[in-house]
């Protein structure tokens, strides 16, 4: 169940040249729907819900910035791995 179990944290670096932009935020929100854990992203003491495109965009995570991922729930590890793939090794190619 969401909100139960140990809190897992990991630091990610934004890999895309435009930062955590609309395409990445969209992919993150879509991906998070497949996990039951509660995931938040923290940058400069601001904590936002990984399930909200608006909040992700408002993090203003520019290229190279550091983001702390905080997950709590049974599939936390898998969710963080997916976020690592999407945010740090950003595979989108928007120009």
């Amino acid at each position, binding site marked *: 169940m969401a909100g139960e179990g140990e809190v897992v944290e990991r630091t990610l*670096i*934004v*890999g*895309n*040249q*435009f*930062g*955590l*932009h*609309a*395409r990445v*935020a*969209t*992919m993150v*929100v*879509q991906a998070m729907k497949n996990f039951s854990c509660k995931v938040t992203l923290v940058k400069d003491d601001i904590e936002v*819900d990984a*399930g*909200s*495109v*608006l*909040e992700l*965009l*408002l993090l*203003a995570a*520019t*290229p*190279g910035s*550091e983001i702390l991922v905080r997950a709590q729930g049974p599939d936390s590890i898998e969710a963080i791995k997916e976020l690592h793939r999407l945010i*740090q090794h950003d595979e*989108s*190619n*928007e*120009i």
Partner: protein
Amino acid sequence: MSGFDDKLENYYIKGVGVAGGVGIGQAAVIERLTTDMCPRRIISSEEVPLEIERFESAVQAAVDRLKDIRNGIDIDHPLCDHVYILDTHILLLHDKMFFEGTKAVIASERQNAEWALSEMMMKITSAFDTIEDEYLKERARDIHFVGERVLKILMGITSKSKMHQLPPHSVIVAHDLSPIDTAQIKKENVFGVAIDMGGRTSHTAIMARSLKIPSVTGLEKVSKLIQTGDTIIVDGSTGIAILNPDPETIFRYRKRQDLYRKYHQSLMAFGRLPAVTRDGSRTVRITANIELLDEVEIAVSHGAEGIGLFRTEYLFLGRKDLPSEEEQYEVYRQVLEHNKPDPVTIRTLDIGGDKMAAHFQVSHETNPALGLRAIRLCLARVDIFKTQLRAILRSAVHGNCKLLFPMISCLPELRAAKQILQEVRDELAGENKEFNPSVMVGVLVEVPAAVAIADLIAKEVDFFSIGTNDLIQYSLAIDRVNEHVNYLYDTLHPAVLRLIRQVTIAGHARGIEVAMCGEMAGEPVNIPILLGLGIDELSMNSLAIPMVKKLIRSINMDECVELTQQAFEMQDALDIHGFLEEWIKKHFPKDYFVDQS
């Protein structure tokens, strides 16, 4: 402007061209809602559930419409790559900040849905205003588009001009165009796009370029100055819109449109031909500057005969870890294979320590341009340098690879770099790795000191490449982005021309080739003098290649030599510039690019 009802006749507005070509047609003005148009009232507490339900069903209707449009875009549609923008909008509609937030305002403030929604939109957009990054800030417009769509549904407004039902010969005129609007454009009916708002990074600009429709943005009030049905011309090449043009202007622009099409077609044909002077005495290799693997295709299609400058910084930027040898190898190999047998000049990491703070404990540099960067940084961090050199030498078995060291200012620096290169060869040989030991090594001549000792450097390298952007900055002591002094930045300064001459003479005396890879190499006005100076290879932005090839194919070498001699007798950069421009105009009176620039 006189009375409001008066039509503006032959009225020119300057904006920003975002997609080239000329479009002439009838304006189709896309009406936009403004928040002051939305009704406001306080509702009773009994009405709250009803009002929330009304809002929810309006959102659902907006989602359904977006899904319909998205599903209508096939895999072969030019906008297929941009479909994710519609997905973003669908997610925004259900975003808790937007969706739950509006419902909370309805309940707590007892406002009607329209009012609550527009308050929420204002709140969200002002949050975006605090973001410094321009690209992310632009995304506030997306929430605006989404909110407006729901507002329209709530207010029972249907767009007057339906995007997908525009009559033939339409030119879309709008305050702003949402991606959903753009996605519905029927290309065969839409001849142009004119937008009030600016921004090259807006999704609309990106999509307009994909659709190849002549488009101008940043026209400020165009949507208020023209009415549906009025004639409008948009020139996406010069960024001009003309409202209600007179017959003479229309005639002129029809010719220009025709000229543009023919010119573009004929120009592209030059890309395939070699850049040989008309008398046949000189052939110049024309190559492209790239920084991404994706750019190779456009370089090849525009007629690049290889890559004259492959900037590798992109691999290192915007990340905290370093690219591995394998990752670099894969990119270099693909670029080399795509260009085979044409050469690819790979420039080793040319970056300042300030850009890679994660890997360097660089104390604040008051003068980064004169600080720890490029080859200096690589010599300070041999591990990074060696990883890149290993990747380059290994990839070099897959094509014609040349290696370029940036920012060399003295011989010990060059020798140290070559020493490390030798160590890398030995290591690879010791590991029995497949690699090419005989890659040509060149120096990027961009520090004035390197020009002064070009004769000495020439003895120890296989080629020169002149990096004019930095060479001009360093030799004229001008920071190009400093608005107070950039008027002094002049490509054709007599000093710059003399520096270039010195490098070519030193290179040719030792029998090595001299290339040029700065912006100077792609500007038509400079081409005759660069030929006269004896540059062997010009590397430039891919889009400039067809034009430069055409130019070279139409001039004789003796003309270039004579022109160069005359230019060297002049004392002022402005005189030289004027002289070269006149020369081009005289020799190529019909060419489009001269009166375009």
